[in-house]
């Protein structure tokens, strides 16, 4: 029975790793959040809406968001050279795409919202974790949104579709399907799929990842409630 399968770390097929989310962890940033999931440690800061020093990026009729996903040199087993590489450039791009639909950027012409995602420690699934944390930081910055975007992945390990792959499962598994969604409408704002899946397996993975998103979404709300209740 799939639901009784024990995973390498003892989780059930549809079980998330332990998650901790905290809003408002930095002084200077307009909004910030800290997230731990499994061995991942992610810090996000949001600045804006503000004028940008890079004027050519601004647009007359709408606001612009810019996202920078960055891994600390010490966040992985073999030290990573500082600065952007191709992987982080791609993740920055699709993270901005994933968050943009929830923002009402047309209300902020000629301005920029900057989202800085720092992976302090990485253990599989940092792009989804970064999106989840970034949404919390955006709320913390007081930026109105249609919905709080949330990210989660499903994948295929030992021919089973399971939720929220750990680093080991990602490396040894057969497929990884990270998504982000707006929980109110169920619309999907990020979708990737790597590895071997039949059409049926893919459909199952999407359903499971969406279910995971809904669970993480509750934790986002709790973190924000806690933030506002302590203020």
């Amino acid at each position, binding site marked *: 029975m799939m639901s009784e399968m024990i995973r390498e770390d003892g989780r059930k097929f549809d079980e998330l790793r332990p998650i901790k989310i905290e809003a408002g962890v930095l002084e200077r940033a307009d909004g910030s959040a800290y997230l731990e999931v499994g061995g991942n440690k992610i810090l996000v800061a949001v600045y804006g809406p503000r004028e940008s020093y890079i004027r050519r990026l601004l647009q007359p009729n709408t606001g612009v968001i810019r996202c920078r996903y960055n891994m600390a040199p010490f966040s992985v087993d073999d030290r990573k050279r500082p600065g952007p590489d191709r992987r982080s*450039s791609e993740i920055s791009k699709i993270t901005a795409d994933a968050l943009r639909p929830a923002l009402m950027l047309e209300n902020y012409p000629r301005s920029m919202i900057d989202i800085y995602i720092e992976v302090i420690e990485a253990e599989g699934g940092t792009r989804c974790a970064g999106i989840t944390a970034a949404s919390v930081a955006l709320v913390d910055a007081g930026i109105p949104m249609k919905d709080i975007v949330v990210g989660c992945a499903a994948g295929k390990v030992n021919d089973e579709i399971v939720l929220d792959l750990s680093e080991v499962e990602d490396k040894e598994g057969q497929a990884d399907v990270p998504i982000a969604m707006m929980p109110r409408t169920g619309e999907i704002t990020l979708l990737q799929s790597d590895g*071997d899946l039949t059409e049926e397996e893919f459909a199952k993975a999407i359903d499971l990842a969406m279910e995971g998103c809904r669970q993480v979404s509750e934790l986002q709300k709790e973190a924000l409630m806690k933030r506002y209740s302590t203020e």
Partner: protein
Amino acid sequence: MDIVPEITRQSITNLVKNDKREDGRGLTEYRDVSIETNVISKAEGSARVKLGGTQVIVGIKPQLGSPFPDTPDLGVLMTNCEMLPMADPNFEPGPPSDDSIELARVVDRGIRESELVELDKLCVEEGKHVWMLFIDLHIIDNCGNLFDACELAVMAALKSTKLPVATIEDEEVVLSEDETFDLPINNELALCTFVKIGDKMVIDPTLDEERVASARLNVGVTKDGHICSMQKGGQEPLTKDEILYCVNTAVTKVKELIEYL
């Protein structure tokens, strides 16, 4: 950045609403595809693909190198993409743009995740010498849907690739001067790209269709109908049903594309 005239936007959107397109195609119909291989004599593998007006050239060059420490018995693939300023007035010379990086990585992941290149057969001496294949994508004319054109070109070039036979003599690698072997390939793959215009998903978009689209979905499918890579792009979300529709359509269309190889 391109601003699409409002009139173009309306015209394309209205056409698509009625299941029609600028160039007369149906919503799930590809433009003409032509593939030519061995177009570069100095490259060990090469192909030129035309997809409508879009044109790309791929050249593959091997180099002997060291394997990665965690895969000592596997060859290495490196995919690089140059969006040449020749191809589009909006492409700029200089380091690869984010679009160019995404294109290269999506095309690369298709090849990599489908595991169709038998990397273990590119090992010359475990832990010491493996073949590194440099797959260089040269975009020379951008009339829309670079993703599918590039993946076809890479696939065709890989199939045409011949490497010199390498042996170890006295602890050194010796390359045969005349003997070659075909790059071992055990599967085939194509990428099938959709954009969302209004409420419809449209396959193989032209440049203007790309510009007015609100979202994009790349679906990589292998010859045996398995999904090996996907990527959503664009400013707006997609519903689950839209995604499943695309996947289902792609499984059929990829079979057509693979026939060109």
